[in-house]
């Protein structure tokens, strides 16, 4: 299989879907002539023209409303918001319109809308532009929230998102666009479901649950742990909502120990919601309290040094695992 970047995988998904279904169009800030802030839509304007690749004003509320309207009218918009931080301007439309119309209006309208947007920090974007806000949206019934971490999953899940009749928030990460991975050749049809996590590494001593960029940090941590005999099972959530709780519970029942590694903040975030589910459904299988690896509980510092200190890293994951995996289990 060939190896391509996350960015290219996204572009391929959009292009293949646009070729497949002409109701599909993309809109967003600087996505046409400029090719998108992260160059995801590069070349699409030239290929599909301004009818299907539309630059918009810097007005998230307006363009999100327009996308929802287009979806209501029978089109299949893929909206790119420059970052998830700006989606807060459009959150009323996402939460109160996109998530609710199908339910409130007797199931008549469908909102087959995909909103693509990157989140996360690590590139010195400052406190306002480095946030992980997925849990805000995952809280809302009526929204799907997915966060693939690999090029393969990104392409497969973006295709599934486009074909899904419901609004899907497709959250990328600024530091994932250059990540490379194996993806089937262009035009080879495959999709990845929107409601399934995946065991990215098998192990029996501890389950590390993670998603988005932290998957790669976690896999490195698992490598390091393996050198010391600790076999970590790494679960990539891929989808925050719906969450693949069965996959998680199966793993927890096997390992009895859980570390949740996420880039977002600790309090009331994705990890804590997940921990509550695990305690609710697998309490009798737990051998240790769930450990959380998170960003520091501060607005993201701009300083490079401080930003690095605030973000969770490989050692944090390794230490969290060691805190709950007894030495005797590994060497006994």
């Amino acid at each position, binding site marked *: 299989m060939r190896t391509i970047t996350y960015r290219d995988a996204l572009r391929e998904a959009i292009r293949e879907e646009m070729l497949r279904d002409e109701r599909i169009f993309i809109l967003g800030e600087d996505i046409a002539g400029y090719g998108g802030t992260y160059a995801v839509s590069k070349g699409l304007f030239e290929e599909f023209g301004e009818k299907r690749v539309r630059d918009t004003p810097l007005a998230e509320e307006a363009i999100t409303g327009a996308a929802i309207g287009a979806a209501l009218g029978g089109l299949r918009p893929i909206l790119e918001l420059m970052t998830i931080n700006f989606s807060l301007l459009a959150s009323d439309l996402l939460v109160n319109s996109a998530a609710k119309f199908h339910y409130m209006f007797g199931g008549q309208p469908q909102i087959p809308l995909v909103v693509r947007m990157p989140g996360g920090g690590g590139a010195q974007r400052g406190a306002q532009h480095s946030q992980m806000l997925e849990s805000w949206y995952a809280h809302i019934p009526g929204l799907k929230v997915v966060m693939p971490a690999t090029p393969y999953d990104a392409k497969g899940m973006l295709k599934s998102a486009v074909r899904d009749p419901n609004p899907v928030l497709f959250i990328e990460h600024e530091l994932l666009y250059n990540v490379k991975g194996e993806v089937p050749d262009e035009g080879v049809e495959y999709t990845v479901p929107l409601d399934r996590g995946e065991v990215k590494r098998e192990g029996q001593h501890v389950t590390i649950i993670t998603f988005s960029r932290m998957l790669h940090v976690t896999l490195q941590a698992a490598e390091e742990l393996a050198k010391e005999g600790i076999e970590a099972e790494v679960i990539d959530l891929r989808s925050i909502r719906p969450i693949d709780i069965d996959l998680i519970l199966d793993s927890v029942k096997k390992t009895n120990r859980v570390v949740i590694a996420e880039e977002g903040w600790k309090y009331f975030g994705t990890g804590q919601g997940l921990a509550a589910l695990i305690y609710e459904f697998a309490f009798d299988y737990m*051998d240790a309290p769930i450990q959380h690896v998170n960003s520091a509980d501060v607005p993201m510092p701009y300083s490079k040094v401080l930003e690095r200190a605030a973000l969770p890293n490989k050692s944090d994951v390794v230490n969290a695992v060691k805190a709950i995996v007894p030495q005797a289990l590994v060497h006994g």
Partner: protein
Amino acid sequence: MKTVEMPKMGDTMEEGKILRWIKQEGDQVAKGESLAEVETDKVNIEIESFASGVLRKILIPEGGSAPIGASIALIGTADEPLPDSMSSNGAVKAAVTQEMEKAAKTGEGSGRVLSEAKGDYRAKQTGVQSPADAGSQGRIFISPIARRIAEENQLDYSGVEGTGPNGRIIKLDIEAVLAQKQETVAPSTPVQLPIPEAELTAIEATETIEIPLTAMRRTIAKRLSQSMQTSPHFYVTSVIDTGKLADLRRQINEYAQNEPHSVKVSFNDLIVKAVAIALVRMPQVNVSFAEDRLILKKQVHIGMAVALEQGLIVPVLRNADQRSVLAIARESQRLAELARTGKLRPEDFSGGTFTVSNLGMFDVDSFTAVINPPESAILAVGSITPTPVVVDGQVVVRDRMKVTLSSDHRAIDGVTAARFLQEIRRLLEEPFGLLL
């Protein structure tokens, strides 16, 4: 200024409660004098002063509790100034402890008060007690899966040592115990059936009263379950002619009446002496089983089971083999009195090598006793009963006493137990030897 600290009196003690200050602020105190009476989880005990001087400041008032090592009083000279921090801080601290007590009793806001007193962040956040707090109340920390596995295997985990954080019992610990059991218990051993749930729930809640376990009851339950579950008991019973023993006892007591410190010798004292001598003669009974070896005790310390209103405690007569019958009588009476008033020190009821349990005063023909671990045998003594016996071909009535020896078969075999009982019988039937 010297600080009096809450002493550690026993392995399980975490804090002590001041029942009574024997000395008051301003009193002269000599080194070795009793300062206060303290209640631990097991006993009440008087603590002695390690310094001489004037008791300047009581930091924990009567009824207050303090953890081991905490300052409870200050001793100094009469005119020595009190440290600034102590004069006010002590009072605050004491007030807090009292508050905690009160809260614990009423069950109101104990989490809040605890957290404020301890400055415990987690407690503050969640209102729950940290393990260290709850530990003193006897709660066992065990992970959910460890508890589930223990319950599925009917394993009493109260004695399992936890290796997880905060001493939590984790899955690994339970699996280790189960693996060990698997090795020691033959696979054909029938599995103990759990009490059917229905049987428990069939009794209406209104028809029952739930009695919380006291620390003593919990200890009894734990140790004796452990004993029955781990040591294979077997029993050997012997009938003893107590005619000469009764005569000897009468003679001793006639003599002892006029001793400077008069004392009355009981049958049990004579039995303890006989057991002690028998143990010297047969040290292979004076052992503990330690999985991969036997530990033979060089000294003979006889435990005597004393019934209390709230349970049972086994004070220990040290070196009973080296004590005279009168000395044993005095010591056993002293220990029994301390036991009844809750004043036994930990060293008074630990370190026994063999136990005598006597229910003779309750018209008991005979009974079997549960071995008191880590000992390997216990003698259960029944009543002395007029019994028809055959003497020289004639049926006559004579006094007889049944004693039953419970032995741990891992350490003691049947013949050893029988010979040990023979030895006791000989000593009690020809009791003059008890005095020599």
